[in-house]
């Protein structure tokens, strides 16, 4: 059992401006489950993408069954027996279970290989599913299945490719406890067949239930590889977060005023459960949690982008009905979205237009014409205030750096003069210098009396900036911590829900 089926040696992978993997070693023993852990952005997914050829490594060796291999695309990986089950499942939803499993290699009649033999396909699917004790109809359309079932199909597909290595990226993020049990019994079955599993997860309890070995990554470096029996929750967490607060956070202590926003018993079926919290004037409320915990969904619900099934929202003590972003903006809110490129900037428009986009009503010069001069004036004012680095305000925003794009978006919301500003991952993908600038802008806004909700996956940022921190896990608030109680271990504990097993 001690034979290494896979070794990855000194894997380096850089993305523009970031060293995502810094000479990482990894191994996998035959018939075992190897957990891969680390904070968001530690390099887990990047390492696996190196392995399956989505982002081949810049340097380093991959040794599979004692042979050096080069994997440049997922198909090669599959043919070598490495199958990855992605967090975002990728089926052809409109087609049947069996067509998805045999996609691209359908059984055919005779030697011509043109006419598909549906009977054989059905038969092979039946046998495969029976072998794995899966109760699925081969003819059913995949879109009619639950996420858990789609996952089972992916696993069946991996088995049908005779995969020796199956990579599972956060497989339980959308599963119910029963479905998790089923998945785990499936993983055990795979182990018995000699299949090795690389299991990426944040969830401590799962790791201790299913893994044989664990590797922890942090900031693109390998921290350790150990048998799981030698670890406990405490040692694992400190391996994951064990870094100092090297970055400086220009937190200005300022008086915190009255309650401005109250969220009461928000419910979104399947996503958020009984969410209640409040936010005061001049306060920065950090929101922490793992990817998929429901942080962004909660912000979207507050801002009216998502429908809630129950709950109410009060601004300055008065109930406010928010069904759309328009209502939210009227109630004095602004929302800096998580994905700058997808939902924030309009890349092919100028810095100026991007700045004023949410505030065009403010430039009504009559007859539907816009007051260009006032637009330019405001834009220059914010360019200076937030020190946005751009040659001119007519430059296309796509030519600016990420940090400066983000500042333009902050300016966009400030033009509306909101009282409550929701910032979702405000410094993601921004270099260190610009990060500090964004941080000081945020603090300054708070000291001017604005109320700020800041969602962030970076614990140092959360701890450095927040007056209070709300931790979300699986759609519930697991803790609201005061500034004096903040440390990485505590937050991580609540984020992985170790102390809260309420189902």
């Amino acid at each position, binding site marked *: 059992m001690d034979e290494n089926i896979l070794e990855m040696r000194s894997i380096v992978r850089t993305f523009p401006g970031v060293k995502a993997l810094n000479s990482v070693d990894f191994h996998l023993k035959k018939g075992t489950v190897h957990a891969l852990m680390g904070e968001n952005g530690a390099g887990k997914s990047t390492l696996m993408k190196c392995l399956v050829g989505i982002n081949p490594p810049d340097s380093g060796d991959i040794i599979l069954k004692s042979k050096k291999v080069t994997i440049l695309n997922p*198909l090669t990986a599959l043919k070598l027996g490495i199958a990855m089950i992605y967090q975002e499942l990728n*089926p052809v*939803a*409109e087609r049947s279970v069996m067509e998805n499993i045999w*996609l*691209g290699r359908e059984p*055919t009649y005779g030697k011509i290989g043109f006419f*598909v033999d549906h009977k054989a396909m059905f038969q092979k699917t039946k046998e495969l599913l029976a072998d794995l004790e899966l109760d699925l109809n081969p003819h059913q359309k995949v879109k009619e299945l639950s996420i858990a079932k789609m996952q089972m199909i992916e696993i069946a597909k991996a088995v049908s490719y005779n995969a020796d290595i199956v990579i599972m990226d956060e497989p339980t993020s959308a599963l119910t406890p029963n479905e998790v049990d089923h998945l785990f019994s499936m993983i055990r079955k795979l182990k018995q067949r000699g299949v090795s599993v690389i299991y990426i997860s944040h969830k401590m309890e799962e790791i201790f239930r299913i893994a044989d070995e664990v590797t922890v990554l942090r900031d693109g470096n390998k921290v350790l590889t150990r048998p799981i029996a030698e670890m406990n929750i405490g040692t694992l967490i400190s391996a994951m977060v064990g870094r100092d607060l090297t970055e400086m956070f220009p937190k200005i202590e300022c008086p915190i005023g009255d309650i401005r926003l109250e969220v009461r018993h928000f419910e979104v079926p399947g996503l958020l459960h009984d969410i209640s919290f409040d936010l005061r004037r001049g306060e920065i409320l950090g929101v922490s949690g793992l990817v998929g915990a429901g942080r962004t969904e909660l912000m979207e619900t507050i801002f009216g982008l998502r429908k809630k099934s129950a709950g109410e929202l009060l601004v300055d003590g008065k109930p406010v009905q928010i069904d759309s972003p328009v209502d939210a903006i009227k109630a004095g809110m602004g929302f800096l979205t998580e994905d700058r490129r997808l939902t924030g900037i309009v890349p092919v428009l100028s810095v100026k237009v991007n700045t004023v986009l949410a505030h065009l009503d403010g430039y009504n010069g009559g007859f539907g014409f816009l007051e260009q001069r006032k637009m330019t004036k405001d834009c220059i004012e914010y360019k200076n205030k937030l020190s946005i680095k751009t040659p001119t305000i007519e430059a296309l925003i796509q030519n600016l750096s990420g940090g400066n794009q983000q500042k333009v978006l902050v300016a966009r919301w400030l033009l509306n003069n909101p009282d409550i500003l929701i910032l979702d991952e405000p410094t993601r993908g921004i270099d260190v210098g610009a990060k500090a600038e964004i941080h000081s802008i945020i603090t300054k806004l708070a000291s001017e009396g604005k109320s700020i909700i800041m969602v962030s996956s970076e614990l140092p940022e959360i701890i450095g900036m927040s007056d209070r921190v709300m931790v979300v896990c699986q759609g519930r608030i697991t803790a609201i911590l005061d500034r004096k109680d903040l440390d990485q271990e505590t937050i991580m504990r609540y984020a992985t829900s170790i102390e809260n097993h309420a189902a």
Partner: protein
Amino acid sequence: MNTSGSIGRILNKYTIFIVLFVMAVALSFLSPYFLTPQNLINVLITESGRGILAIGVAFTIISKGIDLSVGSIVSLTSVVAASLIQDPSYGARIFPGLPLLPVFVPVLAGLAAGILIGAINGALIAYTAIPPFIATLGSMIVARGLGLILTNAYPVPMLRPEFKQIGQGSLGPIPYVVIVFILVAIVAYILLNSTKFGKNIYAIGGNINAARTSGIKVEKNLVFIYGFSGLCASIAGILITARAASGIATLGNNYELDAIAAATIGGTSHAGGIGTIPGIIAGILILGILNNGLLLLGISPYLQQVIKGVIIVVAVIFDMRKNAIRR
């Protein structure tokens, strides 16, 4: 929309056929002439050409593309084939010195022109990654121009009777054009449902990433998909030309829009990955019966256009609801 109830599901699945049936029943009450064999044959003859176009276009739509060039391919095929089969006694032939060619030569030349333009469409889309709309818009204009160049914008008349026979003759009561339409439909049905090519088309349209990671050669398939659409268009071009007894460089203008409309009404989704041959044929027949019925009832042809336009949009609204993935 709640699709979980089994009655609802069946209704949803067969909406298009129910609509077709209801329309036919209603018309047979409204006009005594509608249900006569002669009228039904006429509907089929009129719709055969467009039907073949729609089948080809549907292949491209299922792959999450579009083919705007099919109308122009009809025109080009028309003049290419006609110019090779003009009666030698006619003085103003396009190719005056041309010997008497067997009928299959102009037919094959026409088909070759269609396949060529289709394959170029596919190659452009596959290898330069320009959107299908743009690629086929370009070739639509080019093909139209080529037809005009060849003929100087004059019609190509005086075709030999054996060629005209393709469009005007019949096997018993059933015209050849209808038989060809049925054959194309059967071949297309088999291609889509029983071959790897068909599975590939659905996978490419349904989820191109899944198709790629499963080892499907997406580029090669795109060339075949658009080549098939070009082939269908040129088959339609031959049939329509033979029936009209003259090659015309503007013969197929705007046919692409009718073909797209028919495929769309027939449940082919522009979101990709969805569409069936029976559905597309129902879409063609709905448009055909609508044209015919409105004509029989003496409704203004201009109003017919308005009604057709509304039906297309309503069909897509229904379709989008039907295909919405449950959340």
